[in-house]
């Protein structure tokens, strides 16, 4: 019993960080907007870490899963808004749609791309989001490049007040819940046979094969899990917060790159890393754009380079290495 509890110790610092973030946002006036962005980055990092961190594969098409998740929510709301009886349930259906659509896309992409290794995988995935975006625009799927706007439908079914509370407050709370769930799943994977297999394959895929690990299976598990969370994040942070969806916005590779930066800054394959990375990235981006508008990228790039040089394994990765055997490390993985 004690052992089972101890296994979950590393969740404490993660939850503590989220809790503090939430309190600050709720009680300090004017902070909610920043906190909402930070929660988005945390959830994004935590979700991406399940794949990038645990397998060591870089997926440049990651944002496509968020985009598809956004569409899942949008479709559910636009198609079902006339069923008055649904009420808030429509959001739950939207999440189910987002989850299923992101998972299906990840199976399709994974089945092909996961046969490739390392850099070849990365190159193969670069085209995924662009390809998907052009498919939607060109084939006029889901309104094509006109996108979908569903503010009216959301107001109609939830009522104006609930709809506005959803987009200004509850959507962020849901993002927080998704981030917590992703952290939980990450730890569960780490402590189970899946994590064992993924560690082996990240360190040396050939060795993992020799040990009798079905590497393809575990890569696909991590890929689908990570993509499903991305779908949920998209459905919340994009579809619920801003009730419209346009292909160029939700398939913007920029978000994939942000996710990669967050995971690497914090420490790939660690539980606390994505949170640390999200906070460092989000806070510095926010304040740089306030104090030095227009120059933030110019200053941000060297900051990232310096951090990567100082902490090649990320901030948390470095901490882990320096305090390998101390009790502190029971709480940080």
């Amino acid at each position: 019993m004690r052992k089972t509890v101890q296994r979950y110790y590393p969740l404490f610092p993660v939850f503590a960080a989220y809790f503090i973030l939430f309190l600050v946002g709720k009680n300090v006036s004017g902070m909610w907007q920043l906190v909402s962005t930070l929660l988005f980055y945390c959830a994004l990092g935590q979700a991406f870490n399940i794949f990038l961190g645990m397998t060591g594969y870089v997926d440049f098409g990651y944002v496509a899963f968020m985009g598809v998740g956004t569409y899942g929510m949008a479709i559910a709301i636009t198609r079902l808004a006339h069923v008055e009886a649904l009420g808030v349930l429509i959001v739950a259906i939207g999440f189910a749609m987002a989850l299923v659509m992101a998972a299906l896309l990840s199976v399709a992409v994974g089945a092909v791309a996961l046969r490739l290794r390392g850099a070849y995988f990365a190159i193969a995935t670069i085209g995924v989001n662009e390809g998907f975006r052009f498919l939607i625009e060109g084939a006029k799927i889901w309104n094509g490049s006109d996108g979908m706007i569903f503010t009216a439908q959301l107001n109609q079914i939830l009522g104006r007040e609930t709809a506005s509370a959803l987009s200004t407050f509850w959507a962020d709370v849901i993002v927080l819940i998704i981030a917590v769930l992703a952290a939980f799943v990450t730890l569960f994977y780490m402590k189970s046979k899946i994590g064992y297999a993924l560690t082996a394959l990240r360190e040396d895929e050939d060795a993992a094969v020799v040990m009798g690990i079905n590497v393809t299976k575990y890569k696909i598990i991590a890929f689908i899990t990570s993509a499903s969370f991305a779908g949920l994040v998209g459905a919340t942070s994009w579809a619920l917060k801003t009730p419209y969806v346009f292909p160029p916005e939700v398939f913007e590779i920029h978000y994939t790159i942000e996710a990669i930066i967050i995971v690497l800054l914090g420490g790939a394959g660690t539980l606390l890393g994505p949170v640390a990375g999200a906070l460092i990235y989000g806070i510095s981006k926010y304040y740089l754009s306030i104090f030095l508008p227009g120059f933030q990228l110019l200053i941000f790039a060297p900051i990232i380079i310096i951090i990567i040089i100082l902490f090649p394994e990320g901030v948390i990765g470095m901490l882990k290495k320096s305090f390998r055997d101390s009790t502190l490390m029971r709480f940080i993985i």
Partner: protein
Amino acid sequence: MLRVRELESGYGPMQVLWKPSLEVKKGRITTLLGPNGVGKSTFLTTVFGSIKPWGGKIFYEEKDVTLVPTHKKVEMGLVLAPEGKHLFLNMRVYENLSMGAYVKKALAHKEESIELVYSLFPRLKERKNQLAGSLSGGEQQMLTIGRALMTKPELIMLDEPSQGLAPLLATEVFKTILKMKAEMGLTILLVEQNAEASLDAADYVYIMHEGVIKAEGKSEQIRNSSEIREAYLGV
């Protein structure tokens, strides 16, 4: 125990194996000898399933395993200690060993397997808390074999275990291989370039040249045939 019939495989358009056949008998050390680049490693990786065979058949314990995926073969008791080591260099010695006990039956015997590996390689016990990357070449070779043993194999395939080792260390590795056969009852398929030492250890020898088996026989026969020695082994 293992029967390979007219195996064909290669990389891309290049065929490497031209129908070699080979049999490994239970409880014996069978050696596949030959110089660099004749397809010995390709043979092992094809048998193990990392490379898909183009043709031919592979039987393990009378079952056709030609197209069985690698991880299933490990569960069946077949394992490969790969060339070039492939250790987890950032992990400690005992962590590397624990990683080896992945398949179900191996996990159940993890602790005894670790003790067994330590008794076979006392050096690894001394260094169990060291990072694998900080081991010497010989110790890394021991760890590679040790980790393969952690899967509880019945047949272990060793790809050039003496490669890159000083003669003294190489002798030690061959001694251990003999011990694995005598004390653990393992069946061993050994791939080597080191003709002298592996002829001493082997029960039965196959000689490979350009993807074909050129000669086979008990190791005394091979040793005593000056023709074979001169033509293929250069000793």
